[in-house]
């Protein structure tokens, strides 16, 4: 290791519980009869369907295209027939439905023609990003941000470091660990492409020291690639939440990402190893993102492990494959025990952001009635973002959202450390999530009311203009009428005078 490591404030040492799911290799989940693919599995605008009900599709065929800049395409994970395009329950904490494409698989799993690129250096970075976008690749760490955007340094930034985040700090989750153990070469393929697209000068692969097998596998794979001399593996101490993007950057580079800024502003871009692997598959093998490794674990799972699962696979099928003691419709957790959220309902599909399905957590305390805050300050001690959770709690509870903003609510990464240590068992993160969505809603409402005001004002303006124009027209008509009347009167007058003159001359005669 070349440079000494940095540190971030707070954090916790948590029991890992990872062994349960790392005993066997990654297994393939059987293809389900029905695959349900939400059109939005990423941050940004939902993809727009380009197929119709009844269409036959092949594995890897594009079924929805990116709409707008921050969006990616969606592909059929297996061959079959489109049976429905419409609302379906999605794995979202709200339990709401969203537009989805449903495919009835035919079991043949027949691939579409794959465009493989042997030497990606023959292509421009722009072309590679386009392929990555068309392949539907998003950050597989959990947030699902379109990766092609994070592979574009843009004109205003230069990227010094590509950071591959293999920390995987949250208990129970082991999908990145297993991927690094088994597919280290594939990950490095992706890393090479990412380095090329970003024109980055070096790459750091950060792995927590509780994953010795993954570290060894990555080291071995790296040793056979002499041209990747600018890539190094950095072993970081196991502490939650080291895997948080900003926390890991602080540990590895000793730099802090400022509030409201992105890592790219300090010359760093962070990607997940799963994303790197997907980029390699997309460019070198022409395979779009249609599956991911999902950890299925927990006290109620008989055959816990990691499963390469097609997107759209019903979670109940995956759970049935691993055998669980879960009753139908019993809630389970998507994500880890700290940051994940509880889902209920049996009909939910696996999506691009589903890294872990957790059924049953060890030594969980029975839900207790929260007690009043005693201002012990433990939450502030463990906060990795140096916030004051107790203050944020008071203001969120009082719905004083301006104050929560002043206390940097939006720097909260919802890691759950404060919840974990709170002696009063106050669900602090729930309050912060509540306050965040309330603030975002207020902002949306304000934007909408600004728009309504504008429209109302322009309508009033238009009505006034129309009234004026009408008045003007009436005035003109009246003037024209008056003019013709006057002309007529004059004519009549002249006739009259002529007649009078005639009569006078007659009289004279």
């Amino acid at each position: 290791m070349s440079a000494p490591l940095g540190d971030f404030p707070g954090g916790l040492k948590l029991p890992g519980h990872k062994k349960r799911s790392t005993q066997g290799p990654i297994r393939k989940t059987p293809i389900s009869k029905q695959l349900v693919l939400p059109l939005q599995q990423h941050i940004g605008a939902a993809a727009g369907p380009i197929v119709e009900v009844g269409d036959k599709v092949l594995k890897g065929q594009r079924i929805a295209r990116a709409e707008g800049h921050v969006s990616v395409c969606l592909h059929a994970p297996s061959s079959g027939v489109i049976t429905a395009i419409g609302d379906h329950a999605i794995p979202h904490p709200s339990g709401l439905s969203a537009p989805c494409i449903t495919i009835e698989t035919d079991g043949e799993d027949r691939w579409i023609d794959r465009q493989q690129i042997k030497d990606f250096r023959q292509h421009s970075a722009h072309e590679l990003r386009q392929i990555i976008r068309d392949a539907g690749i998003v950050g597989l760490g959990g947030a699902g941000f379109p990766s092609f955007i994070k592979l574009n340094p843009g004109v205003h930034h230069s990227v010094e470091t590509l950071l591959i985040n293999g920390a995987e700090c949250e208990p129970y989750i082991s999908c990145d660990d297993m991927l690094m153990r088994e597919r280290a070469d594939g990950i490095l393929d992706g890393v090479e492409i990412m380095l090329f697209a970003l024109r980055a000068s070096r790459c750091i692969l950060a792995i927590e020291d509780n994953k010795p097998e993954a570290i060894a596998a990555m080291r071995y794979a790296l040793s056979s690639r002499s041209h990747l001399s600018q890539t190094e593996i950095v072993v970081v101490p196991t502490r939650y939440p080291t895997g948080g993007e900003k926390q890991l950057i602080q540990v590895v580079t000793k730099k802090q990402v400022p509030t409201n800024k992105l890592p790219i502003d300090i010359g760093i871009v962070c990607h997940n190893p799963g994303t790197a692997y997907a980029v390699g598959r997309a460019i070198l093998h022409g395979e779009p993102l249609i599956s991911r490794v999902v950890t299925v674990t927990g006290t109620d799972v008989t055959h816990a492990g990691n499963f390469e699962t097609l997107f759209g696979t019903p979670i109940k099928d995956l759970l049935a494959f691993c055998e669980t003691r879960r009753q139908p419709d019993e809630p389970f957790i998507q994500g880890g025990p700290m940051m994940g959220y509880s889902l209920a309902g049996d009909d939910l599909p696996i999506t691009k952001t589903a890294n872990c399905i957790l059924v049953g957590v060890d030594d969980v305390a029975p839900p207790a009635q929260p007690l009043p805050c005693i201002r012990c300050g433990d939450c502030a001690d463990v906060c990795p973002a140096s916030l004051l959770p107790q203050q944020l709690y008071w203001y969120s509870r009082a719905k004083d959202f301006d104050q929560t903003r002043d206390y940097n609510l939006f720097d909260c990464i919802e890691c759950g450390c404060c919840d974990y240590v709170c002696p009063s068992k106050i669900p602090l993160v729930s309050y912060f999530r509540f306050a965040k969505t309330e603030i975002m809603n207020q902002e949306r409402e304000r934007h909408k009311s600004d728009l309504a005001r504008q429209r109302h004002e322009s309508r009033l303006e238009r009505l006034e203009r129309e009234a004026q124009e009408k008045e003007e027209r009436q005035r003109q008509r009246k003037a024209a009428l008056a003019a013709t009347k006057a002309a007529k009167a004059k004519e009549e007058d002249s006739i009259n005078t002529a007649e009078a003159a005639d009569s006078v001359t007659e009289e004279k005669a």
Partner: protein
Amino acid sequence: MLTAIIAITLLALTLGLVLGFASIRFKVQGDPIVDQIDKILPQTQCGQCSFAGCRPYAEAIAAGEVDINRCPPGGEATIQALADLLDVEPKPLDEECGVEKPKMLAVIDEARCIGCTLCIQACPVDAILGAAKHMHTVIANECTGCELCVEPCPVDCIDMVETQPNPHTWRWPDPSHVDLQRRTGS
């Protein structure tokens, strides 16, 4: 005596000039308090406050002619914000004006629409699209839910429906309410 008079006169003149200059240089366009009140109002332009839109109501509040509790679409939150801004005591919503309802959206039953354009004329934010003897439709994103289009429709084909949250607009529930439910439930 004379020096004193001259000195005071000169002083008065200079200060007058300064004030005159300042009043031109730092002139404030419009009435900022009206703008601030208008910003808080929800801009539904529904007229339930008995004024012809949000701005006239804002002007009346600024002039101290009416109470701040006459806006049903804004509800409690708007009253609270107005009370904070104007430094007065918040009051419960005036029931004469209406009751606070969830956000609504006008929907035209397009099969029954006869294309009379009456609703288009009634819509304060131009959110209805259509032409004479052609079917009309509501631009859902622009509709403020003011209900002004419902009354004029001769065939009664406009319904107000509650806007449904989608995963984008969904909000995490208030945990203190959840606590309360648990407490009252147990």
